[in-house]
């Protein structure tokens, strides 16, 4: 996983609540066996016409948002299915941070594991950032994970909360499994105890 420290980039405004995972990546694109290559299908139903041509009024089809690295949205972003293809598609497009008032649990967890940072900020702040992002390429937003602040184009710094364990893994680009493997003997002990108490769980 690529480490996430500081990101400065164009933010795309998507002023809607409940942007679900079927919108982010429709199910017909889940037939891949790779993690990469999904960027072109990100938001496919909103982004393309039936003949495959672009819908010009969709934000990611407009300059400078074709190069957006940040997405600003409203409540309950990422609700719906558990498909990790959602953060894979965002990442493959180039988006490494989503800012919204809150996130659906599974999407939230999946994002961290792929180096995509979900930043939860109060609705009023998201509305401010939405306005900032409408200024396009002149309005670059910075996300500093080290200092846990979002920096608005006018220089104002907005602090945000992030789980300390997730922050540590993200700053260092560490993968979860390697971390857990360090506890292998505790897992062995747990299994020995459980096997004695509930043998039916062991074939």
């Amino acid at each position: 996983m690529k480490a996430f420290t500081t990101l400065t980039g164009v933010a795309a405004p998507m002023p809607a609540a409940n942007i679900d995972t079927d919108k982010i990546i429709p199910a017909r694109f889940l037939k891949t066996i790779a993690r990469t290559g999904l960027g072109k299908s990100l938001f496919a139903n909103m982004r393309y016409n039936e003949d495959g041509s672009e819908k010009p009024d969709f934000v990611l089809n407009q300059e400078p948002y074709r190069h957006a690295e940040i997405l600003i949205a409203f409540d309950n972003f990422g609700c719906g299915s558990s498909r990790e293809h959602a953060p894979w598609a965002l990442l493959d497009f180039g988006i490494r941070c989503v800012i919204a008032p809150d996130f659906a649990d599974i999407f939230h967890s999946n994002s961290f594991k792929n180096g995509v940072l979900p930043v939860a900020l109060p609705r009023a702040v998201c509305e401010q950032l939405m306005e900032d992002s409408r200024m396009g390429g002149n309005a670059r937003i910075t996300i500093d994970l080290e200092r846990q602040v979002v920096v608005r184009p006018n220089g104002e710094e907005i602090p945000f909360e992030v789980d300390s364990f997730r922050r540590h893994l993200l700053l260092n680009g560490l993968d979860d499994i390697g971390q857990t493997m360090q506890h292998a003997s505790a897992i062995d002990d747990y299994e020995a105890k459980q096997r004695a108490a509930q043998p039916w769980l062991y074939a």
Partner: protein
Amino acid sequence: MAKPRTLFDKIWEAHVVETLPDGTVLLYIDKHLTHEVTSPQAFEGLRQTGRRVRRPDATIAVVDHNIATDASRYGRIEDPESRQQVETLERNVAEFGVPYIPLTDARQGIVHVIGPELGLSLPGMTLVCGDSHTSTHGAMGALAFGIGTSEVEHVLATQTLLQKPAKNMRVTVDGVLPVGCTAKDIVLAIIGHIGTAGGTGHVIEFAGEAIRALDMAGRMTVCNMSIEAGARAGMVAPDQTTFDYVKGRPFAPKNEAYDRAVAWWKTLPSDADAHFDKEVRLDAAVIAPQVTWGTNPEAVLPITGKVPDPATVADPDRRAQMARMLEYMDLKPGQALDGLKIDVAFIGSCTNSRIEDIRAVAAIAKGRKVAEGVRAMVVPGSGLVKLAAEAEGLDRILLEAGFEWREAGCSMCLGMNPDKLKPGQRSASTSNRNFEGRQGPGGRTHLCSPAMAAAAAIAGRLVDVRAWLPNGDAA
């Protein structure tokens, strides 16, 4: 005295391997179900890092999401990408020694139908799958939740997950459910009440007289859709209904082990004075058959309701969202839901494809005919459900009425296999999501119960199923 605990607390605490300094818990996972769509990248990760599957005996794989539900599936899978995904799963299970239920096995079916059916999902377990509707298995009195592919890989490699504890929420449904209403109507009414993010960060325990009265299939329907309220998981405390259901299932404990297991399972229900961070109460007696009108499951009303008017909504974003929903669904404010013409009736999915659901459909279909121009599909949740229905003669009733009787799979729930809505088509669907494009690009989904979908198929429009019951107006 020990602190009173909830059902969730008890299962959680019994599975803590280690608590890390910041409060993150290494949680042991008893059962891991996998399927073709969310596992390829996980197995690939194991291969790249030289890791093995820690407990193949606690893991099982099945194909369900992208397969066809007609006879064509027993030949060569036509779609090259679907074929590649199925072949990749078969290669992975062989290489890593994971038990596998192939397409040709009568036990094949939707992962959330076969888990309980085969006794793979048991009370007191932690159970995961790379699919959000894993919450279904919470009906067993298990802690069951959906995970992403990175977590699938994590469980395969370590049989654990890194988790933060969830908060406790209890939804109590008191009273007796009226005739013509089902578990599906209960859960849609709950989601309409608390919203699509009403359960975020929480595990919901469903309790109360109306929940206790449900059979296991009904409890599965309720828990299945807890994710649509944003909850991490849904659960129902195990009771005699649960123990009777589990007894004798192929992978369930037997004889002395069963007795020992039941003794433990009986200790699991929440203590009388356990603390819940959030409590919601509903009265079952006032629930009417539900149907969604919009493009998320909280956009739901009784069938007697009328499409709401965005002009009455004060918040500009909510107003815009509602207007967008009506535009997508091709509905007008004030329009009655009862009478809305449909093109397709879909009965199936991990929400409603069990034998009880198919009986409910057959009861409505018997002696009637599907309306001209309507495509009506019944897709059993598993090969075993299909066999059971055929043994009862339900397939003949359905076929005579003009329903399609198909092979087990996820089918038209999610638009990633050949069963899809065409753009602009309107469906009455027993599935779980009415998102834009969910059942196929441009498709318009109205979620409802199996009986409501069956009545809609016959009427050719959304109708109030209560009129169709014995002694009803249309009976």
